[in-house]
């Protein structure tokens, strides 16, 4: 049962990444990114990170992808320009990325991981909420501040763009 789910999620992720790698159309790439992100959300559920999976769906698939697609449309489509884009330095990119992949795979294969079994926590979300406000309170407050700064900054930048 779980192996079917795993294969399905793997296919989602690979199909999404494959489309991003080979398409020249930015909007198609944004949609394929959404497919990949949903597949990764499924992976999060399989590794018992349910809250992270829902956050991924809400913020990444529902937020970032919409922003990207919106960005493409604001800049290109309304003025009737093409949404295709090319690439540079293909061979350097291939060599470096294959090198990165091979290096990471080598490191993973030689690392001696020892897994311990942890009993499954029933109320994971409550525990995460408590640790947000106790152990991770500084990071939590800082994130709130950064979000405020990002909100104000994005609004200011967009206002400047509208005035031009």
């Amino acid at each position, binding site marked *: 049962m779980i192996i079917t789910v795993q294969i399905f999620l793997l296919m989602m992720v690979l199909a999404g990444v494959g489309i991003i790698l080979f398409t020249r159309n930015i909007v198609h790439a944004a949609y394929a990114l959404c497919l990949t992100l949903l597949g990764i959300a499924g992976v999060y559920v399989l590794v018992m990170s349910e809250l*992270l999976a829902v956050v991924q769906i809400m*913020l990444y698939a529902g937020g970032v992808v919409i922003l990207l697609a919106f960005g493409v449309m604001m800049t290109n489509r309304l003025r009737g320009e093409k949404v295709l884009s090319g690439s540079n330095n293909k061979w350097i990119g291939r060599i470096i990325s294959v090198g990165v992949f091979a290096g990471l795979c080598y490191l993973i294969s030689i690392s001696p991981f020892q897994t311990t079994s942890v009993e499954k926590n029933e109320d994971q979300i409550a525990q995460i909420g408590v640790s947000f406000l106790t152990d991770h309170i500084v990071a939590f407050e800082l994130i709130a501040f950064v979000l405020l700064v990002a909100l104000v900054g994005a609004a200011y*930048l967009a206002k400047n*763009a509208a005035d031009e």
Partner: protein
Amino acid sequence: MSEQMLTYYLYLAAFLFASGTYIVLTRRSAIFVLIGVELMLNGANVVLASFSQFDPAMNGQIFAIFAVVLTVCEVSIALAILLNIYRKSRVSNLDELNQIGNT
């Protein structure tokens, strides 16, 4: 969850990271580069989440949630800047962005 299964997730993360690197290095369009950055960040998050299941305090998952929130900030600011650049100089390819100052 066996060690074997864990390494499969890590290979997936490595694949995501490497393809993100390729896209960041080669693509001309700024939005494509952002997509590549998202893929790399997701690769990192997969690693964090898959180790987090062995941690009773779930620090990996919490860290990954913070990373997701920060990414949303990053993308929104980046797109606002791109929109500004585009309105000013009609350029959306990164190669052509080679001037600084009020041109």
